[in-house]
């Protein structure tokens, strides 16, 4: 298991090839080539939306802490957890 900590300057990029569509609060996703499916809840799908272009972790935390009215530290913990999960499902990758 990789450590949960990610450097705040790490750049987060979506992996190519994912299709996404909204059904209610869910964002249903499909990767055509690998035939993988995924489902993101409200917060996860907001992060996915924000990652339309690459962003640093710091930028993502600042944006979301404003939107959800939480401290940057709280945002960092939740976002890092989500990003690790999303990376393990090949939704995105990190660039140092």
């Amino acid at each position, binding site marked *: 298991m990789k450590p949960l900590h990610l450097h705040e300057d790490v750049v987060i990029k979506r992996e190519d090839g994912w*299709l996404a*569509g*909204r059904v209610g609060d869910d964002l249903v996703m499909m990767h055509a080539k690998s*035939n993988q*499916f995924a489902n993101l809840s409200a917060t996860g799908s907001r992060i996915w939306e924000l990652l339309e272009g690459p962003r640093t972790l710091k930028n993502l935390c600042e944006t979301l802490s404003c939107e959800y009215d939480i401290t940057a530290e709280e945002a960092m913990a939740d976002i890092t957890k989500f990003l690790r999960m999303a990376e393990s499902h090949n939704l995105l990758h990190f660039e140092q």
Partner: protein
Amino acid sequence: MHSGGEILFDPDGNSDPGDIGLFVLGTCFTVLLQQRGYLILHASAVSVDSHAVLFCGPSGAGKSTMAALLGMRGYPLLNEDVCTLNPMDGGKYSVRSDSRMLKLWSETVVELDLNQNARTLVSEKHKKFFVEPLRSGIADKQSIKALYVLSDLEKGNEPSLEHLNPLEAAVELKRNAYRPTLVEAMEVHEDYFRISIGLLQHASVYRLYRPKDFGQTEALFALLEEHWRNLGLQTSDQIETFS
């Protein structure tokens, strides 16, 4: 197959005309319609209160039998084995009857007492009979209200329904493409996914556990009709007893 508008075929002289018919009306039509950007499901459909409900599953899952049973209950047949999803105003999707006959195993024809409706053998290889549906003739497009994935019921259990979440539903829609290999080969994943998501915004998908024999048919009708009433649909008031 050309530009979604033309099918040319040249039988080799040894092929059973029934098999050629099945192939042209099934696989070839699917290629044609996929060229036009449609999603084609491996499903049968009946009409409930001017809406379509679809039953999908792989070959042998009982799609046609389910449609035949519901025909006896008073619900007209819309589609047999193949459902083409048509976009409607407002983002919904509909199906429309293409007047195909049911294809049923001879045992099913006997069991359901449909001998009078049975016509020719589908093909020599494919030992099913074309069976005239008891109720049909609906010409209008009907919007899709619900989709059921047929699953076998373990012995001793009552028929039941399980609501699938959007992720499970999207996986089942992909799995129940009329010809999944054609979705791959024609690389129409994007169209397929877009239409699946559109469908799921207005219709729900359920897993329907039901017996493969006809022992619990009344319980199955009761389950489905209660479900349809909960969805706001009026159920058949011309109940024909089934024995």
